[in-house]
């Protein structure tokens, strides 16, 4: 595979990741969110593998497989089971309406493009231009966490944010050292389990997964 073609494939994957990040903002059904999230993980994993192949870095294959296992199968499955078991309502409820969220999203993309512009000048890697996309994905995940009411959707936003971070690690630097990547993956896995425990705790204490209920701790007391 030539460098040029690899760069092109990578930018297509980057565009797809960005598209899925917007998809997460637009999607109104919870199962739909899970699907989009799984797709995002898949694109991420493929892009990691492509980078690993072109750069000849074999440890990237391990992180690609890790991503594939965690982000495409394990986490969506856990969430699916949780949603099914807790009988969560299947509609996403938003704080800010979808078109406005999308416009803010576009502004965030432009912002991250400007923020990463000086770095792009420096880098010599074929994947350098995807750093802006990675940062944008992080920002969009953050936006999703802010603008959605339910705990589940916040989690998906959080995981999408992590996807963006992983993508930043592969796109800006051809992957962090393996020890770090393994540690990060472990942390995410633990976090996912804690999320699971939390769902049950919130469910049993509040009888719903709506974060509206959680507004006791405010500063006005």
């Amino acid at each position, binding site marked *: 595979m030539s460098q040029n073609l690899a760069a092109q494939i990578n930018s297509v994957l980057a565009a797809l990741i960005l598209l899925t990040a917007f998809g997460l903002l637009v999607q109104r059904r919870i199962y739909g969110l899970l699907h989009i999230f799984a797709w995002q993980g898949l694109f991420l994993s493929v892009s990691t593998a492509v980078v690993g192949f072109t750069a000849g870095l074999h440890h990237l294959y391990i992180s690609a497989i890790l991503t594939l296992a965690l982000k495409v199968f394990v986490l969506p499955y856990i969430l699916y089971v949780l949603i099914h078991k807790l009988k969560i309502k299947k509609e996403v409820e938003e704080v800010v309406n979808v078109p406005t969220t999308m416009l803010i999203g576009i502004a965030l993309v432009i912002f991250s493009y400007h923020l990463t512009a000086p770095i792009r000048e420096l*880098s010599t890697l074929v994947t350098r231009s995807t750093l802006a996309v990675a940062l944008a994905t992080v920002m969009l995940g953050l936006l999703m966490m802010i603008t959605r009411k339910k705990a589940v959707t916040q989690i998906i936003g959080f995981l999408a944010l992590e996807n963006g971070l992983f993508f930043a690690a592969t796109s*800006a*630097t051809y992957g962090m050292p393996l*020890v770090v990547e393994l540690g990060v993956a472990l942390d995410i896995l633990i*976090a996912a389990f804690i999320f699971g425990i*939390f769902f049950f*705790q919130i469910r049993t*204490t*509040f009888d719903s997964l709506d974060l509206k209920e959680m507004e006791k701790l405010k500063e006005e007391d």
Partner: protein
Amino acid sequence: MTLLVVLGASLIAAVILAFVGDRKIAPEINILGSAATFVASIFLALEVYTGGPMITASGYFFVDAFNVYLSVLTAFVSMTTAVFSRRYMRHEREKGRVGRAGMRFYHAMFQLFIFAMLLALLTNNVGILWISMELATLSTVLLVSLYRTPSAVEAAWKYFILCGVGIAQALFGTVLLYFAAERVFGEGSAALLWTNLSQSADKLEPTVLSLAFVFFMVGYGTKVGLVPLHNWLPDAHSEGPTPISAVLSGLLLNVALYALVRCKVLVDGATGSHKAGYIMMVFGTISILVAAFSLLRQKDVKRMFAYSSIEHMGIATFAFGLGGPVATFGALLHMLVHSLTKSSIFFTVGNASQMHSTQEMSLIRGLVKGNPLVGWGLMLGVMAIVGMPPFGVFTSEFLILTAAMKDAPVFAIFFLVGLAIAFAGLFRKVIPMVFGAAPDYQVKIRAAHTPVYVHMVIMLILGLYLPVFLSDWFHAAARLLVK
């Protein structure tokens, strides 16, 4: 070898405690684990004190004056907290606020949390630093929700989400740092080792590091509890069990600040300017002021002292941002004295709220009548934390203030205003709690007073006279941080 014991003791204790569960000896094992860690850390400190900074063969661990002192502090406070929590948690267990599974979980996670903090302090790899910070968050999240009340679950969720998002920003910063370092050191772990990075910080790309610092500031700053990223902190401190509030406030905030300062050294080296310092000074000053004003409006006692922690972290951040040998010395001392004082305050506050079965300050009255040791413990603690002369906080704040007067007089004014408000606010709230008639709903409890008074004595010693070995230590650490 000593290093291995320092890290291993708490990890092994965590595993053992996970199996021991809710047996009678669990608290003793907890204390034993922390004591072993503390003894090992003393030996490690002696090694560093006599032999200078050391680095393991693999390069993954690195001990210098800065982190070894924090490790000793962490091990010490965790030990006294373990002693305190023995009786405290037994009381909670008897009242039925925590179940069997809860106790098992509490002990195991306590040790895991200590392990995560020590790992964060001792590692040389900036990536592992991030991982262990995240681990420290994860291990305490479910401790905050231990009581399973709606507000505890809410606080834990807030803690989890805000710190999770915050720390994710720090990972982005780490990626950027690695990106810059890779161009100097090439691929692999070598490019993330702090020793390598700090040696050739001037070769790192300044634009990238400036950007990275913004992310570090947001990320680790969230964990330090700097305003405006502090929202999780008062909730997590007020809703979790008191021993956890004590270690969160006394230790975790310090470790987060440690991470931030390590990053700042690299950024300063790369940019050759004081930009990062200014950012920290601004964040620090805002934290001092906002926290001081928020103190005044609190009704929950633990919440109030949580805001006091934000204030003091603001002071330390400000001092590190100010830079210079005096301010850095003051900041290091401040981290030490704040940690000791604040954890002892949380101990007495925990006892006081157990006596009254509430954390509402308006309902806690007449502590001196009910239990003089608790009452005077709180009074002394508050006197120490607001910076009254014979205690250590006075020394550190005085040092920082003199440095600020000289280098940044404008900031010094805000700094003083913040201190004065916090002083007045804390006293106004605490004096009615300590003195006055004891209400009829007050009950007697069996409490551990040793940790409180051990901390107080150390505080007093530090205020009156700084031992030579300690000041040598701080000088060495300050030299590391001020280029």
